[in-house]
């Protein structure tokens, strides 16, 4: 199947606009992706025709809302090939999913002196919840180092694993550098010492075929807004036997079986972990976004984005003064870089004046910046609607900044 990028672009109304007098070139997809018309229409339709609370009313709208919400859960289940639909817990996104595992699984099953292993490549959302858990429980946080290409050093990772390791938490794809981590292999290694493993899938699901049963991971997390869905919604996948054994994370309505002042019993999964009225339209919108991805097909998406990455990398290597940060052999379509003599923030502001949106800063991964001895990087992240011409616009924009800074 030929990937028709112009047809894809037509699905995303936001792309058709001028920013600072230039056509928008949106290269900040690792921060959040844009939304196709089908997702926007789903949200509008829901509020115009369906809106009601779920799991409660006997009236028609409530039943329709509940059916759509639960259908979205099935869509998520199929998307990552979870064994059971109850293993999908809707939440606000990856950050909340990781906090849920830390505060429920972690506080219940990880004791003082036992160890949690993460990597030096993690987003702050996969570092800080474990630090807090360690403060609460006396558990110990270990960090697997990375090499100069920005890849986790597997031998060092293996050396950190022992009978004391209770949990490994790593990202599938690094948001800061684009490194694709060998998560299936790391899952086997974690299981070999009896540890559970959580995979932070925030960056991966928009471009990677994920089969949680084949991978055999214990937890997998998703942020909807990074795969063309709404903000404020995502899911935690967990193996049913673990979720069943875990205590509730938040409590309130919808997560109970029976409440009395003497004793409260909890609902079975997934409701046990979905206290309060959830982001109903968000979950339904996420379902629509996944349907959209499935129509394009992950293999076609991946092939197209790899073409863009290869072209951008080739252009970057020819650019004087440009240093790529993160050159892993297996990389997603993220180009993190610095330009000699020009701070990333200046570059970001001047690119923006040309309509080019990139991320500048530490990308919520300060330890990664420290490792590469840079205060910040510029990150251009490519998605399904970006074109070769936009890569050219980026490179031309960088040359313009270099001229400004060298023309004194």
């Amino acid at each position, binding site marked *: 199947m030929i990937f028709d990028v112009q047809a894809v672009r037509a699905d995303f109304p936001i792309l058709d606009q001028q920013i600072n007098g230039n056509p928008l070139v949106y290269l900040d997809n690792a921060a959040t992706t844009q939304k196709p018309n089908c997702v926007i229409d789903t949200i509008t339709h829901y509020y115009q025709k369906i809106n009601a609370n779920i799991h409660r009313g006997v009236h028609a709208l409530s039943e329709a809302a509940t059916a759509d919400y639960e259908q979205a859960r099935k869509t998520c289940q199929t998307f990552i090939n979870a064994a059971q639909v109850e293993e999908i817990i809707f939440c606000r996104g990856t950050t909340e999913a990781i906090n849920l595992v830390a505060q429920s699984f972690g506080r219940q099953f990880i004791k003082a002196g036992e160890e949690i292993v993460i990597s030096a490549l993690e987003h702050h959302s996969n570092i800080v919840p474990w630090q807090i858990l360690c403060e609460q429980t006396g558990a110990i946080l270990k960090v697997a180092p990375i090499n100069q290409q920005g890849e986790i050093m597997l031998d060092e990772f293996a050396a950190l694993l022992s009978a004391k390791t209770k949990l490994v938490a790593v990202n599938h794809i690094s948001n800061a550098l684009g490194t694709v981590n060998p998560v299936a292999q790391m899952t086997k290694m974690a299981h070999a010492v009896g540890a559970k493993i959580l995979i932070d899938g925030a960056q991966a699901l928009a471009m990677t075929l994920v089969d949680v049963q084949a991978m055999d991971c214990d937890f997998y997390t998703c942020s909807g807004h990074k795969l063309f869905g709404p903000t404020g919604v995502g899911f935690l996948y967990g193996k049913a036997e673990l979720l069943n054994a875990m205590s509730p994370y938040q409590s309130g309505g919808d997560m109970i079986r029976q409440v009395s002042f003497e004793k409260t019993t909890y609902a079975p999964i997934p409701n046990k972990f979905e206290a309060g009225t959830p982001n109903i339209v968000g979950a339904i919108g996420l379902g629509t976004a996944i349907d959209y991805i499935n129509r394009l097909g992950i293999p076609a998406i991946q092939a197209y984005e790899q073409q863009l990455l290869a072209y951008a990398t080739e252009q970057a290597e020819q650019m004087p003064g440009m240093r790529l940060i993160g050159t892993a052999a297996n990389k997603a379509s993220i180009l993190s870089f610095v330009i000699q003599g020009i701070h990333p923030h*200046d570059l970001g502001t001047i690119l923006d004046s040309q309509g080019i949106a990139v991320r500048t800063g530490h990308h919520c991964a300060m330890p990664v*910046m420290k490792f590469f001895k840079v*205060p910040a990087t510029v990150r251009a992240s490519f998605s399904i609607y970006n074109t070769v011409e936009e890569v050219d616009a980026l490179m031309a924009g960088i040359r313009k900044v270099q001229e400004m800074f060298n023309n004194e």
Partner: protein
Amino acid sequence: MNELQELYQQVIIDHGTKPRNSGEMLDCSHKADGFNPLCGDELSLYLKVDANDVITAVKFTGEGCAISTASASLMSQFLKDKTVTQAKEAMSEFTDMVTKSPDANHENLGKLIILAGVNKYPSRVKCASLAWHTLLAALEGNAAATTE
């Protein structure tokens, strides 16, 4: 001159890439470290203040964008021979200029008025302000300042 050219005038690029008064000062009387958590910009500011409360020397080290470095460099030149009171007054006026009234008469600030253009870039105001927050921390005896 468009907004971008106003922000990145040659004086700013010049001070931003070749800062004046850059370096440590071992015999300083005041020192503070500034940090902008949003961008990771860091600045250490050293002052020598004499018995009459006059700032006789200013130096700084750090890592930041052209706006933040140029602001620190221009500030270091501006502060020389100013009293502590004058320095604090200049800080309020500078803050006013970059946040509220870029077009008002800021002749008291001398060369610093070329930073007025940062007002059009809310995300960059903190870059221009870091040096001044650090100055205030140093004068008030605080070890560290942040723009948050």
